[in-house]
């Protein structure tokens, strides 16, 4: 069984956030996620993108998505100059992301930061490959 994967690279510019949002929503819909989950994922992707862009020092933002029987994963990555977490775990943003994603992971690597969101599949809304 194939697990679909999507990769999208856009300019690191707030003007592209709505494109990311739409893409995430369309993929979640395609994967038979429920309306509320689609909405959560869109909102979370937007919030994560906005936060990442505030710290971005590069010229691109990448979106990677994948889905399998259990869950869907969305990862957003930008280039940053090292120093401090991109999203403060004490912040309102983090609270929002936690409420919207089933799992949430923040990765501050050397020169790049990423946020990974995942959403578990709802029982009754079946997997399509």
């Amino acid at each position, binding site marked *: 069984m194939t697990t679909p994967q999507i990769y999208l690279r856009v300019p690191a510019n707030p003007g592209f956030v709505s494109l990311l949002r*739409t893409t995430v*929503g*369309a993929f979640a*819909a*395609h994967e*038979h*996620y*429920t*309306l*509320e*989950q*689609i*909405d959560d994922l869109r*909102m979370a992707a*937007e*919030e994560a993108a*906005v936060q990442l862009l505030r710290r971005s020092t590069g010229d691109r933002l990448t979106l990677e998505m994948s889905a399998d029987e259990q869950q869907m994963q969305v990862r957003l990555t930008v280039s940053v100059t090292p120093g401090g977490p991109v999203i403060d775990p004490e*912040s*309102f943003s983090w*609270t*929002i992301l936690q*409420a919207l994603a089933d799992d949430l992971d923040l990765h501050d690597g050397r020169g790049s930061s990423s946020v990974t969101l995942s959403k578990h599949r*709802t029982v*009754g*809304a079946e997997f399509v490959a």
Partner: protein
Amino acid sequence: MTTYTRDDTKLLFARLRETDDPGVREELTKLHLPLVEYLAKRFKDRGEPLDDLIQVGSVGLLKAIDRFDLGRGVEFSTYATPTIVGELKRYFRDKGWAVRVPRRLQELSLRLNKVVAQLTQELGRSPTVPEIAKYAGVSEEEVLEALESGQAYSTSSLDAPSTSEDDDSDLRVDRMGETDVALDNLEYFASLAPLIAELPERERTILYLRFFKGMTQSRIAEHVGISQMHVSRLLTRILDFLRSGMNGEAHY
């Protein structure tokens, strides 16, 4: 065009409440379109096509039709006027961030709102896009398009009538007692406090229930007495507002 008479209106409303027949609703809409046109013309010098204004005003008319209570002894036109004008005003207020949405999509959004509510009840969970498409007899693409446009369009224009018609307004105010708790939680984020204070009470409650209590949109919808899609739009709008507010820009 049908001539506007008060007796017809009363008769039609009595029939609508009894049968919930969409045909009757349509007839009532047609009958009062001249009122919408009249009110829309008042706003015609603000640079928006009159057709669009009439469309916006019609949304107000539909709301008024759904909410009008024959027993109150008020003429429908008297009752509907502030609702229609309110819708027009909101349209201009929201212009700053709203994107023009084709009529076809607005109508589809309006319809999907109801389909989603029905399916949510039948399935006991939020529906998927294929499920909505099948039920509504449109393509998945159209559903997605309508959902996206719903997000862009004025927050409450596509509002469905409250699911619990008999909902006592006092009761609803009572529920808002939660707002105090909400405020305590939200004010933990000092930078947000002044922005949150600017939000209407209902929006504050929704924000709190979704992000701090982890309540689903459908449950919030039930709780507050609006549709799930409306909750979705409000949440998006609230987050937008908080983001732009933190940059010192917007007003809710």
